[in-house]
């Protein structure tokens, strides 16, 4: 954690200034509008204020933990990467899952559609992590690919996860892990 804070000093300083700014603005709004009076008139005002303070500080704290996967988070009050513009910029990498037949033809499996329940941003974060952590992540990648075997049609005999890299308006694909249906 300390190493990360040192590496991203600029990001941390900005976060601290931002947090102070947010506290000042929020106090200003509470002091100069009727919001606080309205809250006080509610029988559950203490609970509302506690939830407000909790969410407020969770959201501020979340700026300092952009790195995936998070060991601890504030589910269900804050989602990962709520505050875009990552300290390392945007990665131009992607992934593709191919179902291949004996002739080597590729039929793309849309993992985002297949597991739409997980949610696009969440699934995208997980696969981006798996692709970047390869080869350490290959056991987990195989489990994901195994779950897609049921989508096989005709002479298709393997499923492959490919890493896609965007370079000079072209996309390069690199095979990472493949699972054969005979396994």
């Amino acid at each position, binding site marked *: 954690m300390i190493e990360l804070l040192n590496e991203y000093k600029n*990001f941390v300083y*900005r976060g601290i200034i*931002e947090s102070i700014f*947010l506290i000042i603005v929020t106090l200003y709004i509470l002091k*100069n*509008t*009727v*919001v606080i009076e*309205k*809250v006080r008139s*509610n029988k*559950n005002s203490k*609970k*509302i204020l506690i*939830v*407000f303070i909790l969410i407020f500080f969770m959201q501020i704290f979340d*700026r300092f933990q952009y790195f*995936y*996967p*998070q060991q601890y988070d504030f*589910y*269900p*009050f804050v*989602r*990962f*990467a*709520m*505050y*875009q*513009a990552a*300290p390392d*910029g945007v*990665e*131009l*990498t*992607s*992934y593709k899952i191919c179902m291949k037949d004996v002739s080597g033809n590729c039929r793309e499996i*849309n*993992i985002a*559609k*297949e*597991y*739409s*329940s*997980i*949610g*696009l*941003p*969440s*699934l*995208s*974060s*997980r696969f981006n992590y798996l692709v970047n952590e390869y080869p350490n992540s290959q056991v*987990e990648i195989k*489990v*994901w690919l*195994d*779950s897609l075997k*049921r989508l096989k049609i005709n002479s298709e005999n393997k499923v492959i996860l490919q890493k896609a890299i*965007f370079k000079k308006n072209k996309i390069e694909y690199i095979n990472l892990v493949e699972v054969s249906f005979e396994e």
Partner: protein
Amino acid sequence: MKNNFHKKFPGKINYFILYKILLLIWAQYVILDKFTVLSNLHISIFHNRGVFRLISIDNFFDTHISVVFLLFLKISILAILVLNFLQNNRTSLLIFIILIYIYELIKKGFGGHLDHRILTLYIFTLIIYISLENDFTNLDDAFKFSYLFFFLQYFFIGIARIFSGFPEVFLGSTFTDWIIQRSLRPSYFNLEIGLKALEYLPTNFLNFIFFISTIFEVGAIFCILIRNKYSILICILLIFFHFGIYLFMSVNFIENIFLLLLFIYIVEKDGLNEKIYSIH
């Protein structure tokens, strides 16, 4: 109960109907969700988070989460939604909130974090529950507190982007890279409108749109503080902003759009700002 409510709050809006609409927003989310497909994933890739840190999901299932369990959870949520629809009861609303907590936690276990689209709706519903009295007579206040949190989120996100990235994030290739990345990665409809837009629209123009969108996110806080017509304008722009995110990046914020439309309706009918959060 309905008559008492109108005696106490003789406004133009029946907030009970808005409450039912909120339940319908949840219903469409749960009904359209292919939740049971998660039974195809091996439990070894499940991350135990939240309550599952205390009681690991491995204790209940050997290899895969049972499709029967997933279906049961989904049907239970829909049943409790129907119950909430038919009768106004805080306890059943609390049960719904707890069930959704587990429902989303299962998805999070396979994904890694909460989906963007559901966070706002969840907090919105939670605030309604917390601020409601048992007889639902302060439903209008509950809605207005929820909207306070709703718009604060936009404000936080916009401010965070400005502080963490200004000015470079709005000048360089961050936004266009973001569009490329989102277009390359698999999405439900694999829309490539973002990539097409990059062919025709100059980077500076897209950066300008990005900056203006961020300003509107920051400005969302004014929706609860300024005159009605301006707050409606900000809401309409935020709706366009969400459509833009979907078209260019395939990220779905349909629930936020529903909540913004409800807010426009409340402001139009009830003059929410002048009554509730006016400046001294």
